[in-house]
């Protein structure tokens, strides 16, 4: 399907991507300006995309670059630049409760890292997963004609459709949310214009009268 790296090269790439991802995430935690944070987050996502490719999930790797680094981060940069009033430097980065906010994730990560080595699932051998056509066959259950739920029966295609509906609803909701203020601004402008328009209407109403 795609060329296999040698074990040593796989290890090297894994640790390279892991170190860069953690460094970018720490930079995101400490950066002052949101745009620097966005660039750090894009670095994390590109490294995660490389990790997915190493873990034999090329489709998710491509999707990570396309959707996360491409679409979501572009949207975030766009909104930051729309709303950037030069004020975001004045929002304090941390406050006093930040110590608790740091301690909770550290405790969580410590517990997870302590319990993980005893997890039985990690000791199993890595299975061979199929390529894209195998994934599509699982997802859409293309064993029979059309969408055959009985053949494999996990119902992934139904989730796929529901995901499409959620995305559509989100797009409509986002447009409505962001548009409402534009409408009120336009309404304010209309209200400011109203006396002038009324007088114009009156002139129009009176003009034919005068003409007659």
């Amino acid at each position, binding site marked *: 399907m795609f060329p296999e790296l040698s074990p040593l090269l796989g290890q090297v790439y894994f640790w390279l991507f892991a170190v860069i991802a953690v460094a970018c*995430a720490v930079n995101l*935690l400490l950066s002052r300006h949101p745009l620097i944070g966005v660039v750090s987050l894009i670095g994390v996502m590109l490294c995660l995309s490389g990790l997915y490719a190493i*873990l034999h999930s090329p489709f998710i790797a491509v*999707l*990570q670059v396309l959707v996360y680094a491409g679409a979501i981060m572009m949207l975030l940069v766009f909104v930051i630049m729309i709303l950037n009033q030069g004020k975001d430097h004045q929002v304090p*980065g941390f406050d006093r409760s930040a110590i608790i906010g740091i301690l909770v994730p*550290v405790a*969580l990560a410590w517990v997870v890292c302590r319990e993980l080595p005893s997890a039985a699932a*990690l000791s199993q051998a890595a299975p061979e997963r199929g390529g894209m056509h195998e994934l599509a066959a699982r997802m859409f259950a293309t064993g029979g004609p059309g969408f055959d739920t009985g053949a494999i029966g996990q119902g992934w295609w139904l989730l796929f459709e529901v995901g499409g509906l959620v*995305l559509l609803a989100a797009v409509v909701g986002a447009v409505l949310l962001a548009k409402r203020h534009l409408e009120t601004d336009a309404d304010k402008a209309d209200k400011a214009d109203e006396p002038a328009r009324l007088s114009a209407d009156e002139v129009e109403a009176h003009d034919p009268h005068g003409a007659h």
Partner: protein
Amino acid sequence: MHVDPLSVQVLAAILFGLGLAIALTRRNIFFLLMGVELMLNAVNLSFVGFSRTHSGEASFTGHLSPLFIIAIAAAEACVGLAMVICIVRGRDTLDADAYSEMKE
């Protein structure tokens, strides 16, 4: 490829912890959103790592779940950023602590 599954899970836990720290401690509203995105990414990495160590149907489940997580994350970012635009237009600040009138 002989990547240790344990290191993948530890990396996912570290990234999740960093995302949680960002979402909990930063006060700028954009950093909150980015922390949530980072947590979602860490969970995706955990799913993909576990899909390498499980067999059969569980492997495919771990492989397919990130697709839906990415789709829902896109919807979440879309609506979240629209709400940020909505809030910041009326409030004129990016400080998450300023959005507290439901408390009062």
